[in-house]
């Protein structure tokens, strides 16, 4: 799969584990996202009931997805909006490019959009001589560093303040080299001033969508910075990129999901800006875009309906799963090798790019279950990772050593008498090998363990052997 290194997860992870900056950058997550979520959840007694309600809304919507999409489309058009349908990312790119060209765009403002990442909109624009300007602070930082987002709501979470400062100095060359950028506030102010000028230059603004509301034909974005709003209000054309599962029936339904979204994502009661956009500016409006386009992207999602990964379509991209995932926190988002990292990525990526291109991802989990515990939409993420593992096993994608080890283990595990005999001998041998130390520093075939840990030796005889002796039962 072009542009993806998900198949190389293990090597990616080893590289990222050695990245001291990543480790420093991620070390604050517990204090911000995890503690923040815990605090706001404690402040809302109805939180778990709201999760149930939010799940029920999405279940109902997915069960009637064709109808709600058609109603949404009709109302969006009645409000003067244009709706374009893209089966895959190539179609989405072609639509966006055509709209930009028709507008004579030389620069495009972009609010944060994971669908734009999925479609490779920036690369496409650049290849066609159009300058994409990321306006979300985190997206701007990674854009000037030529990186991809490492988190779906905090794209630059893998970077330290010092790295940001270095990138600003390298990029903003027209400014006083002696300026003081030690405080985060100074970095923010510099980015704000630079982006401020660019807002007014772009002919097109591209945003994502957190929701499409069928009742009103609207799209909704949720942000904290206000960049998405300036990106869509100032240019002449507003293009929304939305995947098809973003639709909800009514404003009431959107409200329910909004109540769990920010709380789960950033630990805020509500994000700073929730913006509903319906069609282009009206005749007597003083500002706003003259054209409003929505590109509805499928790219493999419709094929998930009714199948084993149907429930993944409830995902609202809050990022709580990765904020709480010990594997993500250890390796960061880039190790996952494609647009969507963490537990939600481990389930979604194989569905969108093919399990053969993403085989390690569903295996990169201890099944600790914390992701499912915090998922506002109650998506059974570990269970779906296991379903991917079953598919891998059935397709022969499971690595050979694992298959062979499992076969050997199964030969014993299904034959209790043989098992008792062999394990009795083996544990005795291991205990003797360890001697009085009670542990082993090295152990053949267990290099993955003993590279980092001692191997605690068995006490000696097996429980079964001793029990048979003590209680005199065969």
């Amino acid at each position, binding site marked *: 799969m072009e542009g993806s290194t998900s198949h190389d997860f293990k090597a990616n992870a080893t590289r990222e584990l050695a990245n001291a900056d990543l480790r420093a950058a991620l070390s604050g997550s517990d204090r911000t996202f995890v503690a923040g979520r815990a605090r706001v959840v404690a402040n809302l007694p109805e939180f778990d009931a709201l999760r149930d309600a939010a799940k029920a809304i999405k279940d109902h919507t997915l069960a009637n997805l064709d109808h709600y999409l058609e109603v949404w489309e009709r109302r969006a058009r009645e409000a003067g909006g244009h709706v374009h349908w893209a089966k895959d990312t190539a179609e989405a790119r072609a639509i966006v490019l055509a709209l930009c060209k028709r507008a004579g765009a030389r620069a495009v403002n972009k609010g944060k959009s994971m669908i734009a990442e999925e479609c490779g909109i920036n690369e496409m624009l650049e290849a066609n001589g159009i300058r994409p300007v990321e306006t979300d602070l985190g997206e701007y930082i990674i854009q000037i560093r030529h990186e991809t987002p490492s988190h779906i709501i905090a794209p630059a979470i893998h970077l330290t303040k010092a790295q940001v400062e270095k990138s600003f100095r390298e990029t903003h060359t027209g400014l006083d080299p002696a300026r003081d950028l030690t405080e985060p506030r100074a970095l923010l102010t510099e980015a704000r001033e630079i982006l401020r000028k660019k807002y007014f230059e772009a002919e097109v603004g591209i945003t994502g969508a957190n929701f499409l509301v069928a009742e009103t034909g609207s799209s909704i974005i949720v942000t904290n910075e206000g960049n998405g709003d300036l990106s869509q209000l100032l240019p002449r054309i507003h293009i929304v990129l939305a995947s098809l599962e973003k639709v909800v029936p009514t404003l009431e339904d959107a409200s329910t999901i909004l109540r769990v979204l920010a709380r789960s994502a950033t630990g805020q009661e509500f994000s700073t800006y929730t913006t509903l956009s319906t069609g282009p500016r009206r005749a007597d409006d003083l500002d706003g875009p003259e054209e409003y386009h929505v590109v509805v992207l499928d790219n493999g999602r419709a094929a998930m309906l009714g199948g084993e990964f149907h429930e993944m379509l409830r995902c609202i991209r809050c990022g709580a799963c990765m904020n709480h995932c010990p594997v993500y926190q250890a390796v960061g988002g880039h190790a996952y090798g494609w647009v969507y990292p963490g537990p939600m990525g481990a389930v979604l990526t194989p569905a969108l790019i093919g399990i053969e291109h993403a085989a390690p991802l569903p295996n990169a989990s201890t099944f600790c279950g914390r992701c499912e515990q915090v998922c506002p939409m109650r998506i059974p993420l570990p269970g779906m990772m296991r379903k991917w593992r079953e598919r891998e096993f059935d397709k022969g994608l499971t690595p050979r050593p694992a298959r062979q080890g499992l076969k050997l283990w199964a030969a*014993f595990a299904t034959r209790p008498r043989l098992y*008792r005999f062999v394990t009795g001998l083996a544990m005795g041998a291991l205990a003797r090998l360890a001697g009085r130390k009670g542990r082993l520093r090295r152990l053949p075939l267990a290099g993955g363990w003993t590279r980092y840990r*001692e191997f605690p030796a068995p*006490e000696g005889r097996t429980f079964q052997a001793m*029990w048979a002796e003590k209680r005199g039962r065969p």
Partner: protein
Amino acid sequence: MSGPRVGLFVTCLVDLFRPTVGFAAVKLLEEAGCTAEVPQAQTCCGQPAWNTGDRKTTQAVAKGVIAAFEGYDYVVAPSGSCAGMLRVHYPELFVADESWKARAEALAAKSWELVGFLVDVLKLERVAADYAGIVTYHDSCSGLRELGVKAQPRALLAGIGGLHLRELADAEVCCGFGGTFCVKYPDISDRMVSNKTKSIVDTGADTLLAGDMGCLMNMAGKLQREGAAVRVRHVAEVLAGMADRPAIGEARDGGEGA
């Protein structure tokens, strides 16, 4: 004895590595009025196959467990992970096979993690044990999130004379064991267990307790590699007053153990 007949699911790791935990479990069950029996036809709950995506092998292993244990009033395991397998995952295993599905569900309904069983089913409030020391407790993931084991061990530990519990900063965060995960992704697992051992050492506790041998061996092995002087034991050993043996991975003073 008139108490319930309990089949002890020893778990492979206790059977092979730490028989003391098995005897501790029997002692706790018997002192609480149960008849404890240990079917010989048990090996493993099947998680290695289940977590590798091999449903057929898992079914074969599970059928052996179901047949061996379905005659008991309860099935009790000194492990949240194995008890979770029996209680939560066995019913998912047999989607197309109604008769085995029914048997799996029946078994699931009476399968318990040891400490959860003592407190929630047998209503045990106190154990007759002492332990002089500062302990910290790691909540193993499956027990915590699949079975809701959190307050139960703390309730019983609170009644033990001489024992002080000092809570771990990230008690609910995975230690990085994850069954085959720790050998499939050793580098990631190491980072996770290193974070965990740092939290453990930061508590200043002299003893680490948990309810799952896999996690315990992982954390014990790391603590010992790091040279930390923290003893690691299964919570059942302390609850049963059997903490006089060498701790997990600890040097023994005389001969072969047990």
